[in-house]
């Protein structure tokens, strides 16, 4: 290891001002501090620091995403084998992992490679250090895509997310919207055929006995359900092959990372016990979903002509679509979420609320998580403003109208 360290030290002068590769310093710095923690000591009046740094924070989020990624790989392979009616030569688990890897890993690779390129380009031009936040964005984004997504769309999507969602605002820490969701929203509206929650199609080989295959997601089934009671919508889901347990297990079509509940819960536990993600947002989101789910049930009772979807018991909302994935990994992005602790409660609650409203009441989009999080990202500064003003009003009540400047 000493050898490696000496090599790095020998290389460093070339990347310092005046060196041959001065312009590429951000790339050197990223590799250097990736291999060895930096040697910087404290400046200023505070002399000791916590052992955590942003690299470790972001890596922890990536670690929390690993269960979802692994399950997503397995599930993509499993669906592939099922759809194409391929007899396993390997044990089924390995076979599914193998074919799943062939489908999912290129998507992840393209996301990291293309997004990373933009990130590096901006850092070199701006002379910033390369920010670790991209490690999370680059993995989050593929997990929100269906495994059938064309790779060029992955490249276009992550480019939009990184450049428009983040870099034009100044990079990590300055973005208004969650970059991964921005990327997905872009694909959702630009290329609805391949990504829409309505139908996802084809994992089909040329030599397959099936000419094509498609399956409606639970949300689109529920949304299409005719007026009726809770029985109607549950029967519709059942006849499409969806039960609560099947949606909980997640061995079905959908976006790569979000179909199963258990891997997301593992990630949630990792984020909560390390203290990295905000539990306030998650709890508030769950409360928002439950309250609004019940509210919709009430609406259904009052109006018989309304969609049967509104009779759906609220616990179904947790396993359908990507609410859990969104509230655990997307809504808790600290940069785009509300910054104040009281604001986080409001922010999370409204995400849960809007998710159900969009799902049940909106005729155009089957899934509402992505749009509700993005909408609340935009609203977060406003929430913070109200929270801060309320705090200041209470704090400065004794002073009366502020008049120090006069």
């Amino acid at each position, binding site marked *: 290891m000493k050898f490696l360290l000496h090599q790095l030290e020998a290389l460093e002068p070339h990347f310092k001002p005046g060196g041959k590769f001065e312009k590429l310093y951000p790339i050197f710095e990223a590799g250097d501090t990736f291999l060895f923690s930096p040697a910087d000591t404290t400046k200023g009046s505070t002399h*000791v*620091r*916590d*052992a955590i740094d942003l690299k*470790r924070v972001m890596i922890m989020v990536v670690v929390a995403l690993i269960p979802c990624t692994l399950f997503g790989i397995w599930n993509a392979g499993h669906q592939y084998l099922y759809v194409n009616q391929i007899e396993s030569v390997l044990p089924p688990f390995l076979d599914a992992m193998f074919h799943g890897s062939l489908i999912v890993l290129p998507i992840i690779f393209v996301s990291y490679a293309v997004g990373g390129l933009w990130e590096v380009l901006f850092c070199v031009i701006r002379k910033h250090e390369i920010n670790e936040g991209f490690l999370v964005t680059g993995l989050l984004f593929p997990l929100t895509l269906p495994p059938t997504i064309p790779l060029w769309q992955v490249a276009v999507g992550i480019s939009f997310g990184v450049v428009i969602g983040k870099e034009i605002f100044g990079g990590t820490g300055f973005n208004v919207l969650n970059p991964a969701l921005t990327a997905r929203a872009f694909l959702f509206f630009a290329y609805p055929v391949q990504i829409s929650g309505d139908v996802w199609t084809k994992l089909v080989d040329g030599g397959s006995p099936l000419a094509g295959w498609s399956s409606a997601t639970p949300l689109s089934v529920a949304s299409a359900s005719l007026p009726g009671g809770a029985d109607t919508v549950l029967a519709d889901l059942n006849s499409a092959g969806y039960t609560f347990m099947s949606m909980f297990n997640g061995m079905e079509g959908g976006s790569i990372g979000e179909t199963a509940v258990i891997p997301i819960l593992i990630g949630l536990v990792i984020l909560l016990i390390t*203290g*990295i993600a905000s539990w306030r947002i998650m709890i508030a989101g769950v409360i928002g979903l439950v309250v609004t789910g019940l509210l919709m049930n009430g609406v259904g009772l009052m109006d018989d002509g309304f969609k049967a979807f509104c009779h759906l018991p609220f616990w179904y909302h947790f396993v359908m679509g990507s609410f859990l994935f969104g509230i655990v990994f997307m809504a808790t992005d*600290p940069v785009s979420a509300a910054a104040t602790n009281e604001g986080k409660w409001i922010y999370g609650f409204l995400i849960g609320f809007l998710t159900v409203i969009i799902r049940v009441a909106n005729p155009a989009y089957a899934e509402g998580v992505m749009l509700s999080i993005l909408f609340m990202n935009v609203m977060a500064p406003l929430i913070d403003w109200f929270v801060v003003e309320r705090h200041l009003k209470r704090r400065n009540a004794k*002073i009366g109208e502020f008049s120090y400047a006069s």
Partner: protein
Amino acid sequence: MSGFFAIKQGLDLSLEGKPSGEIVDVSKTDRIILHPSEFTRAKPRLEVAPGDKVKKGTVLYYDKRNPAFKYRSPVAGTIKDIVLGARRSLQEIHIDVSGRAVEKLPSFSADALLSADRTELLNLLSGTGLLSLLTERPFSRPATVNTTPKSIFVNGMANAPFRPDPNIVLQGREVEFAAGLAALKRLTLGPVHLCLDADETATNSALTAAKGVEISYFSGPHPSGNTSTHIHHLDPIFPGDVVWAINACDLVQIGELLTTGQVPSTKVIMAAGPGLSPEARRYYKVAIGQPISSFLGEAFVPDTEARIVDGDVFCGTPVTVDSGVRTHTRGLTVLSEDRERHLLGWMMPGYDKFSTFRTYMSSWFGAGRDWNMGTSRNGSHRSMVLTGIYDKYVPLDIMVDSLSRACIGHDTDDAIRHGILGTDPEDFALCSVVCPSKTDFCEIIRKGLAEIEAEGL
């Protein structure tokens, strides 16, 4: 009247290197080094030249901006050397100690102090430089003769690593401390608050039985011992208010001046920290200006580069081993400069790392242990990313995120609305410590305060 306040926000950082309660007298020295630069706001004008003989109490320099401020020699001897820095700023005065000649100043008996004239007291304190031991809030600047504080806070607590424990420093100095308190009573029309640690069991009677002051007890983690916390809970600063504050250890010096009529020449300071060998972690009676090397020279942990901090790990100034003990020095904290680079530090389990985030093994199994921390920043500086984690370290009803953003954006009105005037940079040290983006909140707040002060408020 006495109050009790339980502070919830904060963090008790338990570091290796705690001092023992023993006091050693090492104050015999033949050379002292004075640092006029410790009075950062003064523009010193010399009254002596190299070769001059000075008595204990002879004026060495005064402040051009505030002529009432004079600094007097703590010893009798000969001016050996005067060191100038950039732009001929006065950096150091070296004095060879010899003789016992003393320039007498007025002294007060205990009874006389109770009715002493405020102006006379102020001029005496200012004319010896000791008034600067009192800090004026807002802005944490040295007190001057021109202001009248609404109250004075005496801080008798020490729960940050490592602050000298007044219970130890005041041993045998009870008379001087009481005289100091009596003088403070004459300097303000309002109350004198003495703030003590409720968690401490053995407390010095000079503190617990202090007369004529309002004693309040604070419990809970650091920063329950910070003066801003005391002011916030007892007598908050509103626009236009001025409050003075002093540490109980410093008050002894004022008491000594008033009772003896002589400038104090010695003081008790603490030396602690993981960078010091265990037997050297204790209290020292030193001469003011005594070079640090003369009593700590051999005491550093071998084979490490030591950082000597005048102050504590949260708020202190690095000093060199050859410099002298300053008038404001209460304790020296010695840390090891830690420039070690760890392979793949971002994913290693970390069995000996202090962290408030539970991403290291040691955060799970390290409860109750003393951490050996060096000066490593443990990462690179980044934009602020995590939010809402700082407020739980500041018990001042302040939204740290918003206040620091106001300061960064030079929005002084907003910073004042957020309550910056009731704070001192040291109150945000814990935020700097825990920040994963390695933001230096103390510096942000310091600049914010300086900007507001420059605007003339």
